[in-house]
């Protein structure tokens, strides 16, 4: 359940860091990797496994493997314990990613919040990467939920 009694420290961190851009990276989209990814995921739709298909494109979650150069912004405070665990990924597909595209990803801290459950209080840090193609069109948004135990 959501905890309304947010720690003041966490609120301050959220106010300071949510929305701050901290990394910019480019990624080349190759047909070979797009096909290998889709086939390994058991895909059978030719849109994703046949480069000669007229609508050949990357699998919906293909950008989830693209990692920003930094996990956190410089001088981001240590909150919670340890490095954290991967709590999951949300992918929004805005437009097809094509073979040969060069995507530019901008990374921000999208949210910081806490939840309390049976395991105690956990801190969620959401890192967001927005991918744009050469035409500056937004093609994919990936939210990575990193979970840390509150200290």
């Amino acid at each position: 359940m959501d905890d309304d009694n947010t720690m003041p420290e966490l609120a301050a961190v959220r106010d300071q860091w949510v929305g701050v851009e901290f990394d910019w990276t480019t990624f080349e989209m190759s047909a070979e990797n797009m096909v290998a990814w889709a086939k390994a995921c058991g895909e059978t739709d030719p849109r994703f496994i046949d480069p000669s298909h007229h609508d050949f494109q990357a699998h919906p979650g293909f950008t989830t493997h693209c990692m920003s150069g930094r996990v956190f912004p410089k001088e981001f405070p240590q909150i919670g314990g340890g490095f954290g665990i991967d709590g999951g990924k949300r992918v929004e597909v805005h437009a097809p990613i094509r073979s040969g595209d060069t995507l530019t990803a901008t990374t921000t801290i999208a949210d910081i919040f806490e939840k309390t459950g049976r395991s105690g209080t956990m801190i969620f840090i959401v890192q967001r990467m927005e991918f744009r193609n050469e035409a500056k069109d937004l093609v994919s948004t990936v939210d990575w939920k990193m979970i840390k135990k509150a200290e």
Partner: protein
Amino acid sequence: MSAITKFEDLEIGDDLPGESPDVSMPRVTAFCHAAKHVFERFIDHEAAQREGFAAAIVPGIMSQGLLASMIHRWAPGCEILEIDTVFRGSLLVDSDITMTGAVTDTDDDALIAELDLAIVAEDGRTGVIGTARVQFEQ
């Protein structure tokens, strides 16, 4: 339920056909190379055990991809607008896992279906839960 070809054939509560995807070591290793995530915990049982896992584990982003492929088979030609997965527990490489899905809402004007998704491990634990929004052809 068989493959859906028209949005009109959908109803809230429909189940997607369950699937048991291939998470053998060769398949997971192939994924890791495509994803450039070649870490021992994914491709080496003994190394994963040294890290405290029961065996090598399926990458979370691969489990999301497996679910996306299941959706494409259920509704050929559809477009996945959004897929959101929560990694709750480990799915082991070389094990038998089961994927399920169900229609939880529909937007009849936009031809969009919302789905609940899950992957259950061989021992019955739920390893992944998630949701998706799927656009059908006009």
